[in-house]
């Protein structure tokens, strides 16, 4: 089926049925997931599927419907339901569709090699990775290894004459294991996902990281409740940074539901904190030529040296705010309306190696995992569970599990006094190691 033609046809159909404006978002996908356990195949899942979402505007009112049945009758009925549902909503002058015809050129979003690799080879990779990880004497059990791949194609057309599409794919390989000692158990794992098959990290490297991850926290010691410096490892850093991203959501800001609502061009964090959203990075896992409603993606500085430089918007919220869309309409799929989200977020690296940061910390906690919801975007409160290592006289002393860390965004983000240089741009959310000068730690 020619989906470009179909989406354009469906836009016309929507107008014929009474919509004043219409957008058709069609998505097709194919995925493969291989799970192995203890040297055997555990699960193989494979499927291809497709669906379409209709957004219509009628008298300033917006309605949405979706279906995954491509028969003409079914699509027409679903389209009619979008128009019916629009009538239920409140008219809003901000209900507009983009007329931006641009497409950002992004390299490396599709690897033709992935799908041509035989199934057996993919199964073998997962089996080999599990075997290598289990060879580590510290590791007692496997919770499984996996290989996954996914391919998707997106088609967007709207009544402003937009008609665009792009295709992406990617693959991943990972393992998760258990380290045991007496009654103690600790899980760990490592996983790598890339746009290109040949860019996947070597299996022995993944195996080593997974084993280290599981074994590292064996024989933890409890620490007393206290205030102390906290070094945040890249694996844990997302928990503190994600709340900032949510608070930069332009709609939350307009609703007053963000702790950064009055912070545009004002300092709210340490000058060491610069955050960038880059939808254009070659081979980026979060990259795309345009966002969920067809607006070209950009590379934008959101926070510069602790100062808010940009909120993030889709077309509707941008109009309400009196600005242009920043290319941040996020779509979780064909079955939902565009929300607001980011592409590849990273924090600008600093000049310290992680070793230097540890060495310059007399006593403190290095956290490698934070559990919980992170910083609350509404009021900036933060409280989470943490595990990692206790540092004494600039050296790692012993593992720590089962403690809490807490504070407010204001206290924590302004207290960042060291920023690491260890940024891994292969992830769609990457933060280097950083240190918070002082935080409340809840222990014994």
């Amino acid at each position, binding site marked *: 089926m020619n989906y470009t033609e179909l989406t354009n046809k469906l836009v016309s159909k929507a107008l014929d049925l009474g919509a004043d404006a219409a957008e058709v978002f069609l998505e097709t996908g194919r995925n493969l997931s291989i799970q192995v356990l203890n040297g055997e195949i555990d699960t193989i899942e494979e499927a291809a599927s497709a669906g379409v979402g209709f957004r219509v505007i009628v008298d300033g009112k917006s309605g949405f419907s979706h279906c995954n049945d491509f028969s003409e009758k*079914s699509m027409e009925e679903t389209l009619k339901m979008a128009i019916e549902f629009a009538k239920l909503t409140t008219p809003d002058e901000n209900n507009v569709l983009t007329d931006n015809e641009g497409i950002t050129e992004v390299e490396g979003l599709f690897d033709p090699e992935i799908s041509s690799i035989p199934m057996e080879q993919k199964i073998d990779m997962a089996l080999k990775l599990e075997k290598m990880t289990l060879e580590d004497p510290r590791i007692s059990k496997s919770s499984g290894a996996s290989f996954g791949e996914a391919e998707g194609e997106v088609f967007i057309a709207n009544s402003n004459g937009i008609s665009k599409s792009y295709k992406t794919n990617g693959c*991943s390989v990972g393992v*998760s294991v258990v380290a045991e000692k007496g009654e103690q158990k600790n899980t760990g794992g490592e996983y790598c996902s890339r746009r290109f098959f040949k860019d996947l990290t070597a299996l022995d490297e993944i195996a080593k990281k997974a084993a280290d991850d599981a074994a590292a926290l064996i024989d933890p010691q409890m620490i007393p409740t206290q205030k102390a410096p906290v070094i945040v490892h890249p694996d844990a850093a997302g928990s503190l940074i994600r709340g900032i991203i949510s608070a930069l959501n332009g709609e939350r800001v307009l609703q007053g539901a963000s702790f950064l609502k009055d912070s545009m061009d004002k300092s709210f964090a340490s000058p060491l904190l610069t955050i960038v959203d880059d939808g254009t990075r070659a081979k980026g896992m979060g990259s795309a030529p345009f966002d969920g409603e067809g607006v070209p993606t950009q590379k934008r500085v959101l926070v510069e040296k602790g100062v808010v430089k940009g909120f993030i918007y889709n077309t509707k919220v941008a109009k309400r705010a009196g600005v242009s869309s920043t290319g941040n309409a996020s779509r979780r799929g064909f*079955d939902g309306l565009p929300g607001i989200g980011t592409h590849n977020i990273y924090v600008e690296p600093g000049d310290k190696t992680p070793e230097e940061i540890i060495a310059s910390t007399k006593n403190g906690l290095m956290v490698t995992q934070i559990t919980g919801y992170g910083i609350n975007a509404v009021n900036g409160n933060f409280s989470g569970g943490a595990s990692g290592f206790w540092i004494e006289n600039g050296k790692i002393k012993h593992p720590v599990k089962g403690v809490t860390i807490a504070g407010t965004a204001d206290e924590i983000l302004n207290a960042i006094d060291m920023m690491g240089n260890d940024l891994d741009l292969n992830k769609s959310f990457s933060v280097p190691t950083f240190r918070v000068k002082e935080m409340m730690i809840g222990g014994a």
Partner: protein
Amino acid sequence: MMKNYSVSDIPRRDFLKMSMKGGLLIATTPALLTSLNGCSPEAAMQQSGFGIDPVLLKKVIAKALEKGGDFADVYLENRVSRQIVMEESKFKNGLYGISQGAGVRVISGNKTGYAYTDEITEEKLLRAAEVASYVARNSATTTPVDINKTDRKSFITVERPLEDIADSQRIEMIQRANDAAMSYNPVIKMASVDYYDEIRGRIIANSEGVYLQDENPLMFFIVQTMSDNGKARHMSRERLSKHSGFEMFDKFTPEQVAERAAREAVAMLDAEAAPAGMMDVVMMNGWGGVLVHEAVGHPLEADNISKGIGAFTGKMGQKVASDVFTMVDDGSIPNARGTINYDDEGTQAQRNVLIEDGILKGYMTDVLSAKQLGMERTGNGRRESFRNIPIPRMTNTFIDSGESDPADILSSTKKGLYVQSLSGGSVNPVTGVFNFTCREAYLIENGKKTKPVKGATLIGSCLDVISNIDAVGNDLDFGPGICGKGQSAEVDAGQPTVRIRGINVGGSRS
């Protein structure tokens, strides 16, 4: 990576996506892999069984077992959903969705093959069967039993069918909730009301001869309010959800839901920093049961047990909790959000006692884990949609009622934290380490609930927490939520008022 299992009280799609370290697949084809909010049926179900001939299902099962295998099933699903969202006193979105498809599964020894299609045609179903059969190559095969209409009890009654409800009635409920929230107190600056309903039809047929078909409604009504007094802000939430018709609102009015949300938003404006460290916690009856859902329920799902890695592996029949602690999973509570009639593999839902007076009595199984462990099927094999494989999941999970008067539990606790509601949390099912975030909590001073404190995290390990529960009230109640374990499932969590001696609280002051 070992994924932590999570639970939340409202759909958290983006949160789930980000929290899954397997995020790649999701980054490329979000909806196809995580239609957390699948959508649902009506028209297609009116033809008997999606217009599918049972003879075809038989053919699909035979095809699935052609290369070998012990068990095969085919699952067909059709959902029609409606969602209407009001925010800032405007009807912001109206969403309607139809989703249908089928999945074919083959089990051969410990191996599972799965494939799905969203086109329910003979060609596509047979193709899915062939793809799923790949794992069973070179293994012994089973001859499928002829499928026959199978009887199962139903625990879902409908007085006012959703298909008879005009959208104007849905709109009215939303408007009423919004008005009640906004007029509650001038510090309430914003309300958001999210109305969702769906009808999910399913057909299940398997190589053991089971052939089942049903259609069930689900309603989910969420009110959030934001208070702001210029100094502090709090976003509160209240939910109502049932597998029932529109009569849900006859029993609980939209105003009641809104007022509860607004009350919390106002109360929490005065919240102070919470203390940090170990303290006694009294947890109010209701949704607080989500703590044991996570901390104890997930580790009792049999998939990790059968892999030999679960936190409760090898502890059957042993004392694992205090004497006052009894925990149950029951998919047969009339019209509850977690009620399923029978699971997505066709096993009848039932009341399963997991821990009785502190002794471990049962795991929650699906077809595969029951076979691996040599145990009975408990009716816990659930799936998010036809795009997912069934796995052991909870339904309505709760700490059973005890004997203490809730007022006595509080008054006999000298110092600690009174947790009135939790947002949600997560657990590592292997180690049993969990974390929870309080949404509404108060200090306990001299046996009394005093000042509200800011959302603190509670952390601990499952075996510690159930050994440290020393008082269980007689006021069992439930709350609705969404459980995430790679796929999402609608659940209820419940408990009477309980006291946990010594839990680590993540406060920001000493």
